[in-house]
Structures are given as C-alpha cells and as structure tokens.
C-alpha cells in the first residue's frame, strides 16, 4: 500500500492548499467582496477535503467537513444569506477544520469540545429553526484523530459469494448446458423472466442494452428474446428512438435485488419487469407494451413476435445499429438532446499529456533532483572561474577568440545558474498564508483587536530560505500584537481606531529579501526597556545610548519586556533567539520605533543560500570575500582624511561625515598591529541598520560570484565570518559577515582583540 501512502501525502499537501484557498476566500467574504464564484470556490475547498478524507477513512475530519460543507452549500444556494458575520463564523470553522487536518496527519490534537460546539453553531446557521442540538454527539476530550482501521479502498464485497448451490450439490459430475437447462425446468424458483423495453433516454446517456444483457449473464445462463415488432419501416425510422423490447430468461441463484441492481444505472430509462418463473414471453412483452404510449404510428414489420436467439456476451445486432445510425442521420437529431451549449465551442485542440494545474502547466519534480542540479551548477561556476583564471595566467589577450569564448561561457554559466535558482524559487505566500490565523488567535488570546495587512506575497525567494522564514515571522507577529498593539480601550483613549493594524510585507531590496513586520501600536517604551536592561544587568546604568541603541536592547540575550510572561510571546523564545537564527542564515534583523505610532521590525535575508556576489580582497595574506551587497564604495584614503579617535581607533572623513575605520585583519585576529589605512584599500560598507563603517583591507582582487559553502556544517560558527567558498584557483576563502565585523569592533571599542583561536583559511 505504498502507493496509497504516497497519495495520502499528496492529500495532505492538497489540504494545505485547499485550506489556504478556503481562508483566502473567507477573508474576501469577510471584507464583503465575496461574489458567487468565491462562495463556490470556498465550498469546493471543503468538499474536496471531505472527499479525500472519506477515501482515507478519516472519520472525525469527514464529519466536521460535512457540517461545514452543508452550510456552505446553503450559502451557495442562497438559502443562508452571505453576510460578514457569517464569514467570521466560517473563518473560525476553517481554523478548526485545519486542526482536524493536522490531527488526521498525526500533528497535534483537536479540541473536540470546541469542534463539537462549532459544528453545532454551523448547524444552527444552516437551519436556524432546528432545535439547537445538545453540543453534538462527540463530546470526547481532546483526542488525536485516528484513521479508521479499514480504509475504504480495501475490502471487497463478499456477500455475492454463495456456497450453497442446490444444483451442484445434487448433480455434480455430468452436467451439460442442455442438462442444466432441463434441470432448470424442474426448479422453477431459479428461473426469472426479465423484460426490458429501453427508452431513447437510455441510449442518449450512452447506456447499452447489450451490456445489460452481459451483466445479466454474469448472474447465470440467459436466453434473450428480441421483439422488434414495434420497429417501423426504415423510411419512417427515427434513429434516435428505441423500438426493441427484450425478454430474457435468466437462471440464477441470486435474488431479485441482484437482478434489479443490474438495471441501477438505467432506472427510469427503460420499462423493466422482473417475474419469477418461466413466464410467457408474449405475455410479458404485452404487459410492457400495453401501458406505454404509442411507440410509433407505424405498421409493425413483423406482426407476430418472432423470438430471436442471441448469444448473450455478443452485442445484440439490433441494439448496435441504433447507435451507429445516429451520427449519420444528423438532421433527424432531436433538438432536445442538443441544448446547444457553449460546450461544442470549446474547440478541441491537441493538448500536452501533462496535467496542468488550474491555469498553468506544472511539472512535479523531486526536490532532491533540483538540489543536485544546484550543487552541480555551483561546481560549474567554480570550474568556470578556475578556467578563466588559468587563461589569465597564460597571458592570453582579452581580445583573443579564446578569451571571448570564455566570456561567453561565463555569461551562459551565470544564466544557467539564475535559471536553476529560479526553479527552486517560491513565492513567500506559502509562509504568509499561515499568518492570518495566527493573528486571529493571538489577538483573541490577548484581548486585542488586530487586522493583518499583507503585502508582496508573491515575492520569490529560494526554497531553502522560505522554509526558515516561518519561525521568525511568527515570532515577530506575536510580538507585534502582544507587545506592540495596545488594548482596544487604550487605543480609544489615545484617539486611535480600536482595531490595530499589523502589516506584514515582503520585498526585494538589493539582492536580498526583506520582510517587514510593523504595527501601529504604542511603540517601544524606551525608558522601560532601558530600566529592564539595567535591572537585568545587561548594561551599565550610566551608559549613554541613542534611541536606536535602546531599541536594539530587546535583542540582547536574557531580555524579555513582558512583566508577566504571557501565554503568547513567552514560550521561552526571546527576540535574541530570533536574531540569532536569522543571523545564522546570513540575515539581519533591525527595529525602528516611534513612540505612540508603532514599531517596525525589518528582517533581511539573502535570496538564496547558494551563491553570493562578492569582492575578493586580501587581508594579512588571507583571501576574504566581502558581500557586494554591503559595499557602498571602495576608495584609497588620503592621509589627511584619517583622524585618530581614542587611544587606538581612528575614523575616516568621507565627504561630510566621519566613519569608523575597522581593520579587518585586526578584528578577525590575523594580525596584532594595523598597518596605516593609507597603505591599503578601504571598503565603505553599510550595515543592515544603516550604520556605516570603513573596512581596511590590503588589496582588492576583483569582483566574483562565489558559491557559498556553509562553515557551520563543515566546521563551526565563527563570529565575523558568514560562510566559506572555494575560489577559482581552488583555494578556500572565508566570506566576511560585515555586520558582525562592525559589531565586534564596536563592542571592543577598537581595542585589540584578546587572543582567541584565529581562523586561517585552509588550503
């Protein structure tokens, strides 16, 4: 049942999508923008979840989905008005549905009491006159949903097996078809007469008498007799009408129900008479023909019904022509059968075999294959760089064919790399769509009123980054509602709308993805933050800090502003953990706040964790890569621009401002003594928080795209270093973490580092 398991995985994936569609649709309805198509889509989402759940025997999920679906069906039909209040209820129901899905998946539990209460509420909406049922039959405590022991796909019908065949018991050995027929005469209880008079509707629905006879023959030997007495002359024949009547003598041990079941699909589309016993063919046909409307006012061809023997499994000749003649006699086609729908206009065109998703064609590929491709392209980039370097070493003129060909190769490599990365890129929507529910829940829990506004859901970023966005965003949102927004009363008192707005936005900025979470709350209470930091011994009480520096105190380990750890933001995760996990991704987080107007958290991450554009520099004999995104400009300082500051530090005058000079070699511990900045090159860099610094390096080798190799995975995290890479000549180079470098220097006040294991790039 591996295949079934695989489908189950698909089902849960699909559930995620359907739940997202559901929520999106309901949110639109809540804003009053839900037209009929929205309601239909919402209905379909719940319906599909129910359908799949039924196939896997996920009972509690099916039950809840059913109640939900019933209400939506009523909304669709217009019997329950589509109001904003209803949408709010449906939204809460969708949350519980999502819980059921998670529980069915084995992830978490369902609060059965809440589920039952919600089901009762939904039923109440569906039929307000219904007596409010006592909070539903299911009142069990929280339980994890268990799939029913027997999935619907397994287990065949056994009731058709019948061991006790009277005929076989008595005459087991020498039976022949004739003999059996003769025997049957003696046991009339086994014999049935079935008369069938199909109507034209039977054929219009592509049912087929021959198949019915074949089905009958599965129950036992049959002898079919055809009565074509109603068949008109060819010139009068309506090709779409039905004229043939069948009488079938059936020998079977099955009961009448089994025989009727054969005709389940044609119920109402043929006159059917089933009688026990031999029955006179003429009589049964007469019985059928008599009450019927005059079939055709035409002389029957054969006045006396002449029984025609038909071998059952073969298609009876008389039935087939009806279908075959039909297309030819186009003009005679009854108009009724042709509600000339736009259907025919759906011009059939050859389409690809691949099943496209709604609106676009999609190929599903194992992510591992893509990862492998990305790895290989990474190697290709390195190899191409090595080749370029070798060619350079041989002093080949840039205008030569070889060098030009190599340039083209570089272009192509870059394009391949971009394209491959684009395969793995995904819109952040998949993460964002989980957030409205979070906001609702957190707002409920904290007694705040919050509205989430999202922006840039379609911003694309590498899958590896997406997977790790969820946690920081979740935490920032929780924080924004719990700590940022005021209670509705406070807001009213401050002259604000009692409903707070939390904004979640994604955008691309200079080769990175930026996630902003902002609220229109009270902003950071700097006095309190400062006080707490002092109280917790995180900073000295007499320290002079700028507003921005105070705001950033909340990222310090061990800092938590909530006086009582609330249910929401508590959970043992502080902003320091968020900051660290973001930094581990090569990202940065910063905060800006205005008292009374709210705060904004800005999270910036590289678009991919696979490649980086960098400046290759030389520092104390080591080769380092500085991320290009951080570099504002590079310059050679003049002696008069360098000003000493404090005992060891110095600043650089850049145009109208002073920027701290940081010797990278010293900061990373490559050397004890800084050379004079004028002997080297200065890279003016900008940190994520906008602060600038001037990094001193010995020389610049050039700009290059490098493939990022994680230092953590291969060695360990090193402060000041973001990752490593392999250069064109095969050497390993470290990639500088610009922000960390600035912070290192800030913290140490420019003093020489205490000896620490220094990191030397290994060959």
């Amino acid at each position, binding site marked *: 049942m591996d295949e079934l398991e695989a*489908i189950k995985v698909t089902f849960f994936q699909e559930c995620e999508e359907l739940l997202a569609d559901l929520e999106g649709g309901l949110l639109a309805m809540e804003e009053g923008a839900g037209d009929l198509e929205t309601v239909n889509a919402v209905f379909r989402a719940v319906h599909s979840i129910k359908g799949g759940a*039924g196939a896997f025997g996920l009972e509690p999920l099916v039950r809840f989905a059913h109640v939900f679906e019933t209400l939506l069906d009523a909304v669709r039909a217009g019997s329950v008005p589509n109001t904003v209040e209803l949408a709010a209820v449906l939204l809460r129901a969708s949350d519980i549905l999502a819980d059921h899905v998670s529980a069915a998946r084995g992830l978490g539990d369902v609060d059965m009491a809440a589920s039952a209460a919600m089901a009762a509420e939904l039923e109440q909406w569906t039929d307000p006159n219904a007596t409010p049922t006592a909070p539903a039959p299911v009142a069990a405590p929280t339980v994890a949903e268990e799939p029913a022991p027997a999935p619907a796909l397994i287990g065949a019908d056994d009731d058709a097996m019948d061991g006790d065949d009277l005929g076989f018991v008595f005459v087991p050995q020498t039976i022949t078809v004739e003999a059996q027929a003769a025997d049957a005469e003696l046991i009339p209880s086994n014999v049935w007469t079935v008369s069938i008079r199909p109507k034209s509707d039977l054929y219009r629905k592509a049912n*087929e008498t021959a198949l019915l006879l074949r089905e009958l023959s599965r129950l036992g030997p049959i002898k079919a007799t055809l009565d074509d007495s109603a068949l008109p002359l060819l010139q009068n024949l309506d090709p779409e009408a039905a004229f043939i009547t069948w009488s079938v003598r059936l020998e079977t041990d099955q009961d009448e129900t089994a025989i009727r079941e054969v005709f389940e699909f044609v119920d109402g589309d043929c006159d059917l008479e089933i009688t026990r016993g031999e029955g006179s063919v003429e009589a049964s046909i007469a019985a059928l023909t008599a009450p019927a409307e005059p079939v055709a006012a035409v002389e029957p061809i054969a006045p006396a019904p002449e029984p025609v023997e038909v071998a059952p499994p073969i298609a009876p000749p008389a039935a087939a022509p009806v279908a075959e003649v039909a297309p030819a006699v*186009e003009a005679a086609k009854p108009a009724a059968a*042709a509600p000339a729908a736009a259907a025919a206009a759906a011009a*059939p065109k050859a389409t690809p075999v691949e099943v496209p998703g709604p609106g676009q064609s999609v190929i599903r590929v194992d992510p591992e294959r893509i990862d492998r491709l990305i790895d290989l392209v990474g190697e290709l980039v390195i190899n191409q760089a090595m080749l370029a370097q070798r060619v350079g070493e041989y002093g080949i003129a840039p205008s030569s064919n070889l060098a030009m060909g190599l340039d083209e190769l570089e272009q192509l490599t870059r394009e391949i790399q971009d394209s491959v990365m684009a395969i793995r890129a995904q819109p952040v929507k998949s993460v964002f769509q989980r957030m409205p529910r979070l906001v609702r829940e957190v707002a409920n829990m904290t007694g705040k009123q919050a509205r989430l506004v999202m922006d840039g859901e379609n911003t694309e970023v590498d899958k590896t980054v997406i997977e790790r966005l969820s946690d920081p965003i979740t935490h920032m949102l929780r924080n924004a509602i719990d700590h940022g927004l005021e209670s509705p009363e406070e807001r009213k008192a401050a002259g604000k709308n009692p409903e707070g707005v939390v904004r979640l936005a994604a955008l691309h900025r200079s080769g990175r993805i930026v996630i902003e979470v902002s609220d229109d709350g009270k902003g950071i209470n700097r006095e309190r933050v400062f006080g707490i930091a002092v109280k917790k011994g995180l900073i000295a009480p007499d320290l002079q800090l700028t507003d921005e520096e105070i705001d950033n105190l909340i990222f310090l380990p061990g800092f938590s502003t909530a006086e009582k750890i609330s249910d929401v933001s508590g959970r043992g995760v502080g902003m320091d953990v968020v900051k660290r996990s973001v930094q581990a991704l090569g990202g940065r987080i910063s905060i800006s706040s205005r008292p009374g107007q709210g705060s904004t958290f800005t999270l910036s991450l590289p678009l991919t964790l696979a490649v980086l554009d960098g400046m290759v520099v030389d520092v104390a004999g080591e080769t380092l890569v500085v991320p290009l995104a951080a570099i504002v400009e590079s310059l050679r300082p003049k002696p008069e621009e360098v000003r000493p500051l404090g005992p060891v530090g110095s600043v650089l005058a850049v145009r109208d401002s002073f920027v701290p000079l940081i010797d990278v070699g010293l900061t990373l511990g490559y050397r004890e003594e800084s050379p004079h900045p004028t002997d080297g090159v200065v890279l003016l860099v900008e940190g994520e928080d906008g602060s600038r610094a001037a990094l001193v390096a010995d020389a610049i080798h050039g700009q290059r795209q490098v493939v990022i190799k994680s230092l953590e995975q291969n060695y360990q995290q090193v402060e000041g270093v973001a990752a490593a890479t392999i250069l064109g000549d095969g050497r390993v180079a470290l990639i500088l973490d610009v922000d960390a470098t600035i912070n290192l220097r800030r913290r140490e006040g420019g003093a020489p580092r205490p000896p620490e294991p220094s990191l030397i790039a290994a060959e």
Partner: protein
Amino acid sequence: MTRTVLTVDDSRTMRDMLRMALAGAGFNVVEAVDGEHGLEVLSAHRPDVIITDINMPKLDGFGFIEAVRVDDDYRAIPILVLTTESDPAKKQRAREAGATGWIVKPFNPEKLVDAIRRVAA
C-alpha cells in the same frame, strides 16, 4: 486492447486515487483538472470511458457532461459521475445531463472497475 479512461477531477488526491485503482486494473488513464480541460483532453485522447467529478471550477461536471453529449463525436462515450451517497438530487441532475452511471465516494477499486465494466463495451 488497453482501454483508456479519462478522469476529470479538480482534486489531485482524487485523481491519484483513480489513477491508482484504474492503472492497477490495466486501464490507460488520462487526467483533466476541470470540465474545460476535460473537453480538451477528450479530443486529444478519445477515451473509452469518462469518470468525472461534479464540483469543479471553470466548467462543472453537469456542464461537462452536457458538452460531451451534444458533440456527435463523443456522445456515445459512457460517463460515470463521482457522487456522494448523501446527495440524490445531484445524482439525478447528473443523469439528466446525460451521465451513464455513477460511482459513490468513497469507492474501492473493485467497485470502480465494476462500474466501468457495466458501462463499457
């Protein structure tokens, strides 16, 4: 000769389920995600049997069946609709649109193949 079955359902899970059951029974399976798409696939593959869902975006099951039935090239193709036992009205509407038979969800492979046998020559 291998018979071709066209399955029309907007749910990937359902399509996969149908594919598993049908491929296991030796059918060739082609798929479509809604009624409109179903009509396109129909002309490309000329299936022997069609199995369709009712609730679908763009063109629903009723519309799809009607469209097949008015097309002289395809109107003799048997169509089975996927229904739930709880909705006789829908079944009736599907029959009026021209459905040949129906399969009640959830189905097992035996039931499915059985239904196909009953409508396919």
